[in-house]
């Protein structure tokens, strides 16, 4: 941030200095720009306020059981958020389980192995990937991923790992697993680009020290460089998680829209974002609406916490150079 004017501590010119600044237009400029900056404050507070106020009925009626009940019945007026929280968490976890190894692997390749030209070209394309709108991922998922999962991947998993409860049950193509896969694609670019930067900040001396001790390239990377950059890498994972939690469109299109909890990953489910997308504009009755807004509030709080942790980790990386052992 650029330094700014300070008032010199001369008692006789304090007020005069202010008036001078006023006359020169500087004070006005400061106030005007501060007012615009204040809009951001206003907007954020406004979001929290509206979420809180518009979920009052649900919060008062259900209290904490809103979080623990899995009963979502619009007709009977029973609203429990658990299936959606479950779906949100499960799909995000599946997404991370896929995206983190692939993303970290790609980041290692781009930071450690690839020559500069390839690294920057690949990074360029991967960052373009981050700009692809969610709805386009969704369209692709419906027409290509769902048949793929239904006809090849899920049957194969069922055949080999079907004894596990998560890989048992009816195969529909839509469901937690498919949503997790498409989420993984959305989250991948973020994990790659942030991890790559964290890895690039590791001083060359660290690598060289490991190699000088006789480590193979892989050992020096995996046992020295990656741990050194672990703060930034964790930061990228948390950031990916935050995105996955809030991602709406592509998940809505392939989650199956079933407001219940299932153990099997093949089963259809629901996420907070998905039910908001599907039902918000058609919700009848205040309690219904307030319950949906309550879901929005839960999602909001969840993403704030995860985002804050992500930022702390990433800031810690850049400030301290990298993780300390």
């Amino acid at each position, binding site marked *: 941030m650029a*330094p700014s004017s*300070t008032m010199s501590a*001369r008692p006789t010119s304090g007020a005069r200095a202010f008036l001078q600044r006023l*006359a020169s237009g500087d004070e006005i400029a400061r106030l005007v720009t501060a007012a615009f900056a204040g809009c951001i404050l206003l907007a954020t507070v406004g979001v929290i306020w509206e979420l809180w106020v518009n979920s009052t009925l649900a919060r008062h009626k259900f209290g904490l059981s809103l979080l623990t009940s899995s009963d979502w019945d619009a007709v009977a007026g029973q609203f429990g958020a658990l299936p959606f929280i479950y779906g949100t968490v499960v799909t995000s976890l599946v997404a991370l389980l896929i995206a983190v190894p692939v993303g970290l692997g790609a980041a290692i390749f781009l930071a450690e192995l690839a020559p500069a030209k390839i690294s920057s070209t690949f990074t360029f394309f991967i960052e373009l990937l981050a700009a692809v709108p969610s709805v386009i991922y969704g369209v692709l998922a419906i027409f290509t991923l769902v048949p793929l999962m239904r006809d090849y991947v899920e049957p194969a998993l069922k055949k080999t790992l079907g004894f596990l409860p998560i890989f048992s049950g009816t195969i529909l193509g839509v469901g937690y697993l498919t949503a997790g896969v498409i989420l993984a694609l959305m989250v991948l670019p973020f994990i790659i680009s942030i991890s790559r930067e964290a890895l690039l900040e590791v001083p060359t001396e660290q690598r060289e020290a490991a190699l000088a001790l006789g480590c193979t390239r892989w050992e020096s990377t995996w046992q020295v460089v990656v741990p050194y950059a672990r703060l930034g890498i964790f930061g990228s994972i948390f950031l990916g998680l935050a995105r996955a939690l809030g991602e709406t469109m592509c998940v809505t299109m392939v989650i199956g829209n079933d407001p219940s909890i299932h153990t099997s990953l093949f089963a259809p489910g629901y996420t907070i974002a998905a039910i908001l997308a599907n039902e918000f504009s058609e919700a009848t009755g205040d309690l219904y609406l307030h319950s949906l807004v309550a879901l929005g509030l839960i999602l909001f709080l969840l993403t704030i916490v995860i985002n804050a942790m992500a930022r702390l980790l990433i800031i810690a990386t850049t400030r301290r150079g990298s993780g300390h052992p």
Partner: protein
Amino acid sequence: MGAVNVPSPSSTAKPLAQEAKLHAVNLNFYYGAYQALHNISLDVPANQITALIGPSGCGKSTFLRTLNRISETIRNTRVEGQVLLDGEDVLSVDVTALRRRVGMVFQKSNPFPKSIFDNVAYGLKVNGFRGALADAVERSLKRAALWEEVKDKLQKSAYALSGGQQQRLCIARALAVDPEVLLLDEPCSALDPIATAKIEDLLFTLKDQCTIVIVTHNMQQAARVADRTGFFLLGKLIEYNTTEIIFKTPTRQETEDYITGRFG
């Protein structure tokens, strides 16, 4: 030109010389809690070149920057004492008007990302100049001995010039508003000897119209160009006199040590 000015903690201001343009009177300067200048009292005579020398961190640049109050752009700074321009306290006048009268050239040339013409014209436009801009620009560039080199490419970016040319451009830019005082903060430290010589020659031609204060860590430069020289050490003004006395027969031991290269 006045007796040797030996500051002591309890000194009162000596009678000010008639032809002094700028007077610093018991000037103290603080960066937060750290005191960078201790009781500086100094008269800058009009139409002469005054050099400020001293080792790194001695406060000479800090002092220079209080003269046009550019020190105020840094947070948490405090000034005590007075700086008088023609008898008027600079801290009580409008700072933008002050800076039109007291111009500054910085250590590393800092032309704006604009054309050569727009750089020189900037000060004029900002201060509401209503005359013929092109003539004023030409005049300034001539005063800065840069006109011949750039007259055919006034619309080109200032960054197309060499380092020495850029610094002369900054001088032209500062001169455009006809300042009464020109402050130069180590203007040649990033330049080669030839570019340095050009600027030093420039200063000689300018001092008739302008009072010049130059901070330099190059003693030979001070010896070459300055009429008066002030030696700073650890935020104090150790000795201030004509250049000849400072370099040939300094009164203080610290001055002699610095001049002869025992430190610094």
